[in-house]
């Protein structure tokens, strides 16, 4: 993005630090803005429909967001490396079915979850290998694997269906119960989100993901193992999609061959609305999670204030457009301000 390329290179380090803080603030503001919109929307809905934020209402909001938050977290990591994974919907579907199939055969819940995560990671590794070794555009490759995984899923599942009554009670309870208003699923998603966020923020390899996304060439020249990092991002994304599949099974108890189809676009929208730029190297998983929360909340808000659900798709799309347009305009403004500042500094020094 424009921000990562400072217009003037010969500045003193202190000045650079000040600028970084400024930029940091702008990006923090980005996440704050999403959170503010979310809170405002929920409050406004609560005012017009007092039943909305009841105990059950909050639980439902969190439950609805859980699965999207998980997938969006993985997707955010991939997008930060300037790639994209369109196959997440298919991977979610096939993992959910794999877990359900295993549970129906009388397996244990924990193994089923591990199975789903493992299967997801496997497909993630396939994507990662194709993107990093084949050096082909991520969009095209994952579009291909979207088809391939969905096809395999459809052939395997056929017209079969997994229903909640064929699953062990403990597993289904896990999908519905929680501590006070917070469902277990949301706790799990929150923990994963925090771990990934901490990893990206504080670990060397996490920072390298950002470096890689900002400028692949520079990252390569700086000795960052580009292929390895891309691979990590995809495996993580696949594993989280697999985990989301297992949780989908626990939450809805109903899986067939169409589960998760078309989900990739919702996920990408959530990530972008949350401020993770398509151009790579910026944004956080927390932003992506907020974006996911915002998108799923809209789905609950509209019926609560009496708007027909046919509006949901259009609103999601327009929100996405708004998010990227505002981001861009903001970035252009910031760049202009920085340029002006730098020019002033320079003329002051010469005077």
């Amino acid at each position, binding site marked *: 993005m424009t921000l990562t390329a400072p217009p003037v290179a010969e500045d003193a380090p202190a000045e650079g630090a000040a600028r970084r803080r400024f930029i940091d603030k702008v990006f923090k503001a980005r996440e704050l803005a999403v959170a503010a919109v979310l809170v405002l929307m929920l409050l406004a809905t609560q005012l017009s429909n007092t039943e909305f934020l009841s105990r059950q209402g909050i639980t439902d909001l969190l439950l609805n967001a859980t699965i999207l938050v998980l997938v969006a977290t993985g997707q955010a990591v991939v997008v930060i490396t300037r790639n994209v994974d369109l196959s997440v919907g298919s991977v979610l579907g096939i993992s959910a079915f794999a877990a359900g199939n295993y549970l129906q055969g009388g397996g244990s819940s924990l193994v089923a979850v591990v199975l789903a995560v493992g299967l997801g990671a496997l497909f993630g590794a396939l994507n990662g290998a194709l993107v990093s070794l084949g*050096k082909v555009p991520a969009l095209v490759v994952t579009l291909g694997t979207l088809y391939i995984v969905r096809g395999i899923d*459809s052939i395997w599942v056929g017209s079969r269906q997994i229903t909640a009554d064929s699953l062990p009670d403990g597993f289904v309870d896990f999908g519905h119960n929680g501590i006070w208003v917070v469902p277990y699923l949301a706790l799990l998603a929150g923990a994963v989100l925090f771990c990934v966020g901490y990893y990206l923020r504080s670990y060397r390899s996490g920072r390298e993901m950002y470096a890689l996304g900002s400028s692949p060439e520079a990252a390569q020249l700086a000795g960052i193992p580009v292929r390895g990092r891309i691979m990590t991002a995809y495996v993580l994304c696949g594993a989280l999609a697999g985990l989301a599949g297992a949780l989908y099974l626990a939450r809805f108890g109903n899986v067939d061959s169409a589960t998760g189809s078309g989900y990739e676009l919702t996920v990408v929208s959530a990530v*972008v609305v949350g401020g993770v730029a398509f151009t790579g190297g910026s944004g956080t998983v927390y932003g992506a999670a907020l974006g996911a929360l915002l998108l799923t909340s809209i789905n609950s808000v509209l019926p609560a204030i009496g708007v027909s659900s046919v509006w949901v*798709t*259009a609103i999601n799309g327009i929100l996405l457009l708004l998010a*990227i347009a505002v981001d861009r305009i903001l970035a252009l403004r910031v760049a202009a301000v920085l340029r002006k500042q730098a020019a002033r500094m320079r003329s002051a020094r010469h005077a």
Partner: protein
Amino acid sequence: MPEATVKTPGPAAGMRDRIGGAVRWDTAVGALLVVLLLCSFSFVENFGNALNVSFLIGNTLPIALIALPMTMLVVSGEVDLSVGSTVGLSGAVMGALWNQGMAIETIIPICLLLGVVCGLVNGLLVTRLGLPSLAVTIGTMAAYRGIAQIVLGSDSVTDFPFQYLDFGAGRIGDTFIPYAALPFVVLLAIAVVVLHATRFGRSLFAIGASEEAARFSGVRVKRLKLAMFVTTGLLSALTGVFWALHYASARYDNAMGLELSVIAAVLLGGVDFDGGKGTLGGAIAGVFLLGTLQNVMSLLNVSAQSQIVVTGVLLVVSVLAPRIGREIAHARARRRTAAAPPGTPAPPPGARTPVA
């Protein structure tokens, strides 16, 4: 997406588009299509009769129609994922207006105009705000589909006038040619000439190869891109009208996922997703290769699910194979330079293979 990767010409530059330095990719796809057609005519039962071939062409036409502007768009380094939704929107508006009792002769121009507006929105967001087309068109994909849903709800409009339905689904006499194929051939001819024989077309290639260089050499990059987005919207809307007539059904979810089929076919036809490379002939060969494969697999009772897998594998192979071919060509060139007397500079490893 247009990345500012520097494409240094190496010793194997001429072989860039060729598999292992021999055959051009689009020629190979064309040859594959011919072989597939010949095999199908001789070995697959019920393939060769005129009715089936007319079905094949009719069902492939929507993808082929959109592939024309999409090829040009991808050549210029952009992409439009909202085409499927534009098809759905134009069909939905057509159905809604028809329900209002408007004459179809007025409805169709309105739908086409709507397509122009859709394309204009995409194009302005991309060119004026400088947003990546991928992100913009994912957004408009949802937005246009959502508007279609608002316009028509879950209704399905089927009672269009008979002569129009007949034009959409019928064929000329007992031949294998659907009526709608004739206007398509005209459009194809126009597109081929525009992309491969005019200044406009050459400029698109220039933009795709290096936007900056194109701008500095006087190409009006933004204007050209805007024109291509508008054309894509227009042809998508036209396809929406055709879709509703061909399948005698206007619904908001018409052509769901069509964007993926179009892009898969175009890339299979050898158009480089990074821009700057590709031919319309290759793209159309790719479209009909996928269409024919689907038709043949249906005739052979291969399930629809397996057909999805085949599409996916073909797509991955179509982007992977040229790159592998290029790598092989590189390796060969490197060996040659290594064998040459010292003093000849060896091409730096990975010089033209920027990080994915």
